[in-house]
């Protein structure tokens, strides 16, 4: 699965995700990637989110929208919302994976609870950061 989130100079957020799914999947199984709110979500009032991992759990936990809701309704920061959803809620569901998210200030969060995460981010006037979290 791959994805991107961005904030532009006009203050607009966007998110995109794409995947080939799971090896040996059957019965036209889909995961969270194409499910708006589960694997992908963007709202200028809060954040943009793109997810990766075990899609069934992300669907059940409505992960991407949940991050946005925590910011909107509980006043969480992006980091707080992401940590809560990925490291607490998703773990309780038994789901492995992670997400990338960005808020209206340009802050970036890259939480995950499993290995092999390939990530990169760049803010204006800062150097790019690319890392593989093994």
């Amino acid at each position, binding site marked *: *699965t*791959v*994805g*991107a*989130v*961005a*904030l*532009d*100079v*006009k203050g*607009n*957020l*966007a*998110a*995109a*995700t*794409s*995947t*080939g*799914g*799971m*090896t*040996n*999947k*059957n019965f036209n199984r*889909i995961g969270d*990637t*194409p*499910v*708006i709110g589960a*694997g992908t979500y*963007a709202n*200028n009032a809060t954040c*943009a989110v*793109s997810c*990766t*991992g075990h899609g069934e759990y992300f669907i059940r936990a409505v992960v991407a929208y949940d991050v946005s809701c925590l910011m909107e309704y509980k006043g969480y920061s992006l980091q707080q919302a992401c940590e809560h959803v990925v490291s607490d809620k998703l773990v309780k569901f038994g789901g*492995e994976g992670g*997400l*990338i998210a*960005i808020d209206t*200030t*340009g802050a*970036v969060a890259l939480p*995950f609870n*499993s*290995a*092999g*995460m*390939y*990530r*990169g*981010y*760049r*803010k*204006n006037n800062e150097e790019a950061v*690319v890392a*593989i*979290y*093994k």
Partner: protein
Amino acid sequence: MNKFSIAIHGGAGTITPSSMTPDKEKAYKKALTDALSAGYTILAGGGDALDAVQQAVQLLEDCPLFNAGKGSVFTKEGKHEMDASIMCGKTLEAGAVAGVYNIKNPVKLARAIITHSDHVFLSGHGAEEFARKHRIAFEPEEYFFDALRYDQWREVRDSDRFMLDHTVEPETGEGKKFG
């Protein structure tokens, strides 16, 4: 200038920590850097976030190292069945596709759903028909083939098992991590 920023993920890779060689790591980082730079360039030029995320994802789809577009994993039937979505935070418009075959860039098709339809989510043959109507590029099965993905599929194709991008090695537990 107002703030702008971009983040990308190459998902959860196929390679377990013990099998990541320096050359592979270099290739992954180059692909990630290229995708990040493409999105960043759009933003730095005053472009839209929606265009930036689409461009970054398209480049990752075009790279066989990642499980999307070219290099997508194999289904039980030995095919490549793909999903994608995109959402605009300003308008809350969204486009998504599921279960499509042979689409070169599924995220481009998702974007076309925003632009050219009143719908959000198209799937299967109907989505492919929509793609043809809007001149979205198709590629033959061979385009999506990757030897590593094929070997992964061979290991499990005669079973009911399925594998995530990131495989936790069952005996060692390697791959399990919190961060």
